[in-house]
């Protein structure tokens, strides 16, 4: 698993850690029941405060991504991936509806929209 902390980011450090672990869980990089690094070890490797990593883990636990066993550590909670996927699809659907509304208002054709998506994707790829 990779976690990168960017001081340039506007997000607080705990949020950066939380989001990156969450993404790793969602894209399957971290599997269910996998043991996560300890709070102290993570803090040491990333050179951040223990309170910061603890907060990231606490929030992940609150959101149901991980669960902690006292004395053993934190584990990835089993995710209902089908349910997740459905939720994401719904989000995409509602966003596309919005996009289509704006496209109609600005008179943008479907081909132009697809072109825009491709350009954005390329740009994002470059950034990463």
């Amino acid at each position, binding site marked *: 698993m990779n976690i990168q902390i960017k001081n340039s980011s506007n997000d607080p450090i705990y949020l950066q850690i939380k989001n990156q672990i969450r993404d790793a869980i969602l894209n399957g990089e971290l599997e269910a029941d996998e043991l996560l690094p300890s709070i102290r070890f993570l803090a040491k490797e990333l050179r951040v405060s*223990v309170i910061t990593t603890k907060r990231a883990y606490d929030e992940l636990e609150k959101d149901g991504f991980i669960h902690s066993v006292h004395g053993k550590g934190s584990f990835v909670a089993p995710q209902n991936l089908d349910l997740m996927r459905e939720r994401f699809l719904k989000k995409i659907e509602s966003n596309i509806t919005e996009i289509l509304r704006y496209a109609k208002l600005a008179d943008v054709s479907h081909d132009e929209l697809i072109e825009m998506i491709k350009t954005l994707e390329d740009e994002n790829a470059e950034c990463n």
Partner: protein
Amino acid sequence: MQNAIELQGLKKRLGNFVLGPIDLTVPRGCIVGYIGENGAGKSTTIKLLLNLMIPDQGEIKLLGKDIREFTPQMKKDIAYVFDDLYLPEDMTLKNVQNFHRKLYGQAWQDKTFSELIARFSLPNNKTIKHFSRGMRMQLGLALALSHGAKLLLLDEATSGLDPVIRDDVLDLLLEYIQNEDHTILVSSHILSDLEKVADYIAFIHKGQLLFMETKDELVDQYGITSLSKEQLAEIDDKAIVGKRPHQFGVEVMLKRSLVPSDLELERVSVEDIMVYMIKGERK
């Protein structure tokens, strides 16, 4: 959970300078940055903790026990590093090792010490008179970490060290704190890289403890920005922590909660907070 450090109404007068009364609680398992200007009372506090000075009033508990009741055996649980290594300069590294072996007896961890010495590649047969400042501090830290202490006190120990050695020190501290029973208090007028790993910041100014807060909350609380003088006039006075006016505008540190959310603020460092608070108070 037991606290590593508890100070209650701690007071000490030294000529015109008065420290305290200070109330401070440091939970176990964390790193505390104890910051303030030179002469703010950081070293005095640490000397009181280490029984080098005797308080006029108040109580000091380390690892849950009043320091007046500490036996030599219990003192082995406390490690300390000062701004220099206070050992006779004619001692070689071997002498220093022998001395500590005799001093700490059973608690002395020869293996840990040898590993640290090898890691820093400190010379075995040179007297410490010929050690550089960086080497003296590395040795001091190696000694402090080699008798199984639960509380580590650093008094300006990293000031004036070059960045590479500071980085080594940071690594060692982070390894030490992997044990949840271990606690570190670092006093310094300049935290720089150590700031990243500190859990709490305690800020002392003119002998008074202004606050002790978790670093994350502290840093998230404030923001810095550059404004024109007209823009500044629109900001709530209470929101201004400190400012640096110049000919072409003003740099200000603001409380995020008291300014409009669309005002773009830069993240602050602990040092920024220290500087702006002290300067803010002067006006």
